[in-house]
């Protein structure tokens, strides 16, 4: 009798951890006619390191990882770029995954400067887009990615920004966030990417 109880407990335990819950939509939501409607990433148009226009359509039907950086950033950027390149390497052959890094120093980071940085990082578009564009538009869209990007003369390099990596799904919703300076958090983030692909996207 005791054995049966023991085995049923184990079975219940196994069943409960078999299915991972879907990743939540992290954007603010509002109930409209009994249905939750979430805010989305706004429309955008930027230019990448190959001088190619990058818009929401670039990521149509795909998921992408977004962050902020600038090429002369002396503080956290080398670390976050290293962590982003881990994601790049891991999903290099999976065309369902793309990456978007906004340079928040639009005055210095022209297309040729971004190109040189991309070559140094040994990465290529359209897999990983390093983009520049209208300064106001770049700083404003950080808000949609729950990120901070501000001009601040007292900050190292002249800009204040955080280390967030943000995962966006095909419906322009944020599904996972990680601190790009924490390799363990990025490990967890990459598992979230794999899980989102497995649970909501057709196989590659």
């Amino acid at each position, binding site marked *: 009798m005791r054995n049966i109880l023991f085995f049923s407990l184990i079975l219940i335990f196994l069943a409960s951890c078999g299915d991972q819950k879907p990743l939540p939509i992290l954007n603010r939501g509002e109930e409209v006619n009994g249905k939750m409607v979430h805010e989305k990433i706004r429309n955008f148009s930027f230019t990448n390191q190959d001088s190619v226009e990058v818009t929401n359509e670039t990521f149509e039907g795909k998921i992408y990882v977004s962050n902020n950086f600038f*090429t*002369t950033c002396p503080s956290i950027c080398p*670390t976050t770029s290293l962590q982003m390149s881990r994601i790049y390497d891991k999903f290099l052959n999976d065309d369902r995954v793309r990456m978007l890094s906004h340079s928040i120093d639009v005055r210095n980071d022209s297309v040729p400067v971004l190109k040189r940085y991309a070559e*140094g990082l040994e990465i290529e578009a359209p897999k990983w887009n390093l983009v520049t564009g209208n300064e106001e538009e770049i700083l404003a869209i950080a808000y949609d990615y729950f990120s901070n990007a501000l001009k601040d003369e007292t900050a190292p390099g002249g800009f204040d920004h955080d280390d967030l990596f943000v995962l966006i799904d095909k419906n322009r919703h944020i599904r996972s966030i990680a601190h790009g300076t924490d390799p363990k958090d990025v490990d967890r983030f990459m598992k979230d990417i794999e899980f989102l692909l497995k649970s909501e996207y057709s196989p590659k």
Partner: protein
Amino acid sequence: MRRYLIFLSLISLIIFSLTDCNNSYSDGKYLYEIHCQSCHMPDGVGLKGLIPPLAGSDYLKKNYDKLPCVILLGVEGEIVVNGKTYNQPMAGIPELETMDIALLINYINHQWGNDGKYTDFREVEANLQKCE
């Protein structure tokens, strides 16, 4: 009682000398962590083709006299490290004192298997006169 005191002072002397040995690069390490580590990484390996390595770098030996100016004023343009070309500007650290620069160079030259020369205040001061 007296014997006990002598014993105690001997023990503390040994402990002090040991900790001092372990910390011979601690000032340089501290400066490295604040000013250099976020780009050149904690293990000195740099970042791909973007930021050159300090660990096992031939640049440190070939440009030994230039190191104080590089640290103080930064670098622009192409440089070659271990046969690989890098072309990303490095910012200088203008707030460093001459002694800080000496401490940093000695730390970097004796970390991660590096076996560079020891420098001192006077040598750094002389090399700083030659900055372009």
